[in-house]
């Protein structure tokens, strides 16, 4: 009974196979065969979507209506700068292809596709990548494997997610963690409050949701390659929605003078999932068919729980307390 919703950790680290008996592995993409969910789960390119006017549907409060289910189109969080290149120390899923036949780096600026780390920060990232496949210290276990929230930006490359909209808010329901984006113009939380999902204040500019992100505890790594920021990071996100309502690009600028030599930009393409896509577990679209006999098909989100279901997943080497209290309030 405690094993419900194991697909929250479908794409777990091969280095943690001892704990993986409870998880499943999604089928590798077959060349020439469309994947469930529209066949672009491993797209090779990033579509161009320009910032501009919004001509689509709007909610009563004036926001562009983009509520629904979304997921990225090019891979998961195995590798930040070579999304289809596989996790460090592991082979890529699917057939091996030369770099120029895989999706581009998520780093869209600088042009070389690399995060412009300062030397000490680069050494930390590389140390993590080198140790990821065989973690000998707690710090080498990817925090998401321990059910930590995906945080910013990794939540956007980790399973599908749902966006719900309300006057003054957007709510992102991720596979691991929930993020509330406030549109009320109020200032950020006090600077010493640091959060897995950071503190988000947004506004709409035409088809683009612009979000100022601060208060990031920066503990959620960007992926299995160990790319990271510090808690000094300031992120400005631009969610640029295509007017056809089917896609958006996540374009985020990262500024952190304690980790990077210059600001840099990440781009993550996403597509919408709807009742036209199959429901029931594919990791881009974890939805169920609502029970309403005689009425049109309707999908609804599955409950997401992680630590409660997976226990010491990923923590076997270091012992995540499972039975002992961890708070006393």
């Amino acid at each position, binding site marked *: 009974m405690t094993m419900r919703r194991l697909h929250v950790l479908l794409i777990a680290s091969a280095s943690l196979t001892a704990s993986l008996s409870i998880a499943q592995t999604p089928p590798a993409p077959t060349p020439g065969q469309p994947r469930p969910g529209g066949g672009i789960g491993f797209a090779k390119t990033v579509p161009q979507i320009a910032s501009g006017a919004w001509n689509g549907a709007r909610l009563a409060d004036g926001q562009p209506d983009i509520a629904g289910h979304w997921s990225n189109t090019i891979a998961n969080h195995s590798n930040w700068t070579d999304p289809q290149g596989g996790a460090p120390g592991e082979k890529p899923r699917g057939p091996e292809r030369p770099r120029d036949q895989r999706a581009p780096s998520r780093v869209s600026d600088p042009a070389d596709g690399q995060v412009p780390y300062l030397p000490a920060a680069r050494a930390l990232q590389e140390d993590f990548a080198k140790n990821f496949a065989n973690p000998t210290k707690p710090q080498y276990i990817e925090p998401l494997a321990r059910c930590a929230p995906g945080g910013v930006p990794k939540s956007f490359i980790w399973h599908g997610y749902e966006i*719900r909209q309300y006057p003054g808010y957007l709510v992102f329901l991720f596979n691991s963690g929930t993020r509330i984006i406030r549109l009320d113009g109020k200032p950020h939380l006090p600077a010493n409050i640091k959060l897995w999902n950071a503190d988000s204040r947004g506004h709409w500019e035409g088809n683009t949701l612009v979000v100022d992100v601060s208060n990031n505890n920066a503990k959620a790594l960007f992926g299995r390659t160990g790319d990271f920021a510090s808690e000094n990071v300031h992120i400005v996100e631009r969610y640029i929605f295509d007017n056809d309502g089917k896609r958006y690009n996540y374009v985020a600028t990262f500024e952190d003078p304690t980790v990077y030599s210059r600001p840099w930009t990440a781009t993550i393409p996403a597509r919408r999932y709807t009742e036209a896509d199959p429901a029931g577990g594919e990791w881009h679209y974890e939805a169920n068919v609502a029970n309403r006999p005689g009425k049109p098909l309707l999908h609804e989100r599955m409950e997401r729980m992680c*630590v409660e279901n997976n226990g010491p997943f990923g923590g076997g080497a270091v012992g995540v307390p499972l039975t002992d209290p961890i*708070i006393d309030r």
Partner: protein
Amino acid sequence: MMRASMPWKSAGGILLAGIAAVALNGATSDARSPSGKSQNPDQAQTHPLAQIPRLASGKPDFSGIWQTLSEADYDLEPHSGRRDAPPSAGIVEGGQIPYLPKALAQKQHNFAARAKDDPRLKCWSLGVPRSVYYPAPFQIFQRDRDLTLVHQLGNQVRTIHTNETQHPESVESNFWLGDSRGHWEGDTLVVDVTDNNDETWLDRAGNYHSEDLHVVERWTFVDKDTIAYTATLDDKSVFSRPWTIHVLLNRRRDKNFELIEDYCYTLPYDEYYPHKGGK
């Protein structure tokens, strides 16, 4: 004119009788009528129920951040003050939870082991109804098709569907927060919660339930900043009969108050990130 939304209609206790009387008076005077044809306009404008927020559809709008002032989470039943709980008259209608004899023994075992075994101590999901009266804020986001309850503690997010969908015909296994299907009876949101798992407790005193738990919640505004919350719990494996709790939920109105994430289950390991050796 009486309305179907009569709060506390199943409540026989005296705990909140005064509030119930106020609410019933409001219903009788039709103070909530959008037509404004009340016989006493002054009373209609000033009556607490005339000022409750509503969606464009006319349904009550529970959007906002809520929290109980009660001691319910310490112990649902009446109890004296003790080391780990302030005194309280409890929130159980009639006083005691009607345990079956064998289940009472389990509850007493839970009570003895509460300092270690309460699932809350691991920052895990609290289930329904405990997530509602746990003393931390939760935020309701509401649309016509559903209500989304984001609880500050842990990563508890519950959807209450209000789009005329039914419970799943079958589930592969049960849910931490159950499956919640709501409908409106006048201005009362009635929520049927099934498919609960048996991992959660009902309070810090070890009151508990099994997978057979079935909860019917009733959410009703008392005034624009107060919700009367009632839950009736039925569990044939644990209780001899259904029983009911009543608690008030208060809108958090502190200046600039907002939910702050509290993923406390990460506390044992968060010191190791990013790329840190820990203490």
